[in-house]
């Protein structure tokens, strides 16, 4: 079932100014519950603008955004509902922690939803645990946490609202490989517990390839393609032409194919690449 749907969505920045820019053009997509969608596109491709429509932070210049089948910009009530249904984690969310304690910060969203204190407390503990923050940290000031802990606390704060769609803008940027892995594990666990839709915006093709059921590729405000990873990566040359970098291993296979070797087009993980090459060579012996 689609949780987020856009119909002919257009957004123009700075209308009637010299900075006028059509950031999003005619985007019609559907995102389903329980699936992980990766959004990729070069700087200025409109991906951040697009996701800000999903919970009504931006209003379409034209077109509609439906959350759970309801036009979120129909009236104030719909908009408020959308804000709780669709959780948005901005880039570098650790800069948005503001409460006295980590616990209060995570509780901020649930409190605004009007939940009772027992439920708020349960959620704070549960999501702190889910993101790997010790209970003892809940009484500390967010400023006492490490950068990685702060980011996870900020993510827990959005998860604590239990949104049916969780949107994250570059959740792993600036983290080392283990830190990235950890963030994606957390997101996966959240999805499994809540059967939510996950939308991850990232510049890292490697990360997107690994976690996504479907990949939305944006180019100059338009949908370039929206398909499964093998389908998307089989268009690697085109992806490079629009300024995206495909995983190194995909590039290696592309070059071997261009040399005339009969290899599959949809290689985007090292593990699969090694399997393919082993099979190819062993077959011949």
């Amino acid at each position, binding site marked *: 079932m689609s949780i987020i749907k856009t119909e002919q969505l257009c957004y123009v920045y700075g209308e009637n100014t010299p900075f006028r820019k059509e950031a999003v053009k005619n985007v019609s997509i559907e995102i389903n519950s329980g699936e992980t969608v990766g959004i990729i596109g070069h*700087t200025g491709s409109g991906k951040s603008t697009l996701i800000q429509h999903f919970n009504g932070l931006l209003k379409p210049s034209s077109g509609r955004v439906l959350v759970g089948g309801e036009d979120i910009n129909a009236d104030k009530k719909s908009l408020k509902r959308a804000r709780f249904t669709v959780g948005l984690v901005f880039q570098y969310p650790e800069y948005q922690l503001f409460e006295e304690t980590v616990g209060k910060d995570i509780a901020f969203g649930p409190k605004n939803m009007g939940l009772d204190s027992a439920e708020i407390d349960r959620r704070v503990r549960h999501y702190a645990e889910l993101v790997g923050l010790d209970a003892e940290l809940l009484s500390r000031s967010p400023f006492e946490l490490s950068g*990685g802990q702060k980011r996870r606390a900020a993510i827990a704060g959005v998860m604590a609202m239990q949104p049916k769609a969780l949107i994250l803008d570059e959740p792993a940027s600036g983290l080392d*490989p283990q830190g990235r892995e950890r963030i994606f594990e957390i997101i996966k666990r959240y999805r499994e517990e809540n059967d939510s839709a996950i939308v991850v915006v990232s510049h890292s093709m490697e990360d997107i390839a690994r976690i996504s059921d479907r990949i939305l590729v944006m180019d100059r405000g338009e949908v370039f393609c929206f398909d499964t990873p093998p389908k998307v990566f089989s268009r690697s040359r085109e992806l490079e032409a629009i300024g995206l970098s495909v995983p190194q291993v995909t590039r290696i296979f592309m070059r071997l194919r261009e040399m*005339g070797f009969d290899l599959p087009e949809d290689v985007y993980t090292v593990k699969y690449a090694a399997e393919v090459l082993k099979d190819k060579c062993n077959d011949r*012996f």
Partner: protein
Amino acid sequence: MSTFIKAEHLNFAYVDSYSDPPIKNQVLTDVSLDIQKGSFVALLGHNGSGKSTLAKCFNAIELPESGRVTVAGLDTADAKNLIEIRSRAGMVFQNPDNQIVATIVEEDCAFALENLGVEPREIRRRVDEALKTVGMYEYRLHAPHRLSGGQKQRVAIAGILAMQPECIILDEPTAMLDPRGRKEVIETIKRLNRENGVTILLITHYMEEAAQADRVVVIDGGEIMLDGTPKQIFSQVRTMKNLGLDVPQASELVCRLRQAGFDLPGDIIYEDECVSALAEMLEKAGCPRRGEG
């Protein structure tokens, strides 16, 4: 080559003096490292390994608890040397939003030069050149807050370039950039290194970027664990993974195939050599190329 930055038995700890008793968090332990003038060094380590602190010690933002750091022979612990050290070894940080001060791109770029009292005409020339180098000249009259993250970062780099430093220390400068922006920044860094002889110290999580350096230094738990050429470092796939780091996918692919018994060279880390080696392997195994049947 002469030494430009030298760390001798450097120890550093952050002390939380609000706690009682104060909590001491040792970040760097007995680090000794020479960075040669004109070299391109990549510094790797997972979050919390101490690499950013080490970089800050090289720019006199942090001072050693014990041991000594010199930049161009100037001791960072001597306050008199501060301005000279920072103008000879410029620093670019990860988040451009934290380092942009002016409301117009070219004014931001000129900020340091104005503070250093450079002639206005010379400022104009250097700012234009720096902005052209990073590909932001067209945006010189724009407001920084209207730029994308990647564009902002290139402006921050231009601001450092305008000071014409002998060395640039970059702390994950590409973490927020898209692939195109990342490539531009790395190409810029390489060009500055090769053509202008600028010493580069690059902290990065992107192993393909680190592979382009002359030398890779790996730090873990505040100590230097590995130090060598990219080939020496990235061919140690298991060691790197154990340190919580990655290797280029080319290295990992070759490593997996070698483990499966394929005869491939152990020191492949670059894409080109990986493609040639795999092509040779496929040929040997008798895999046909298209058109050869």
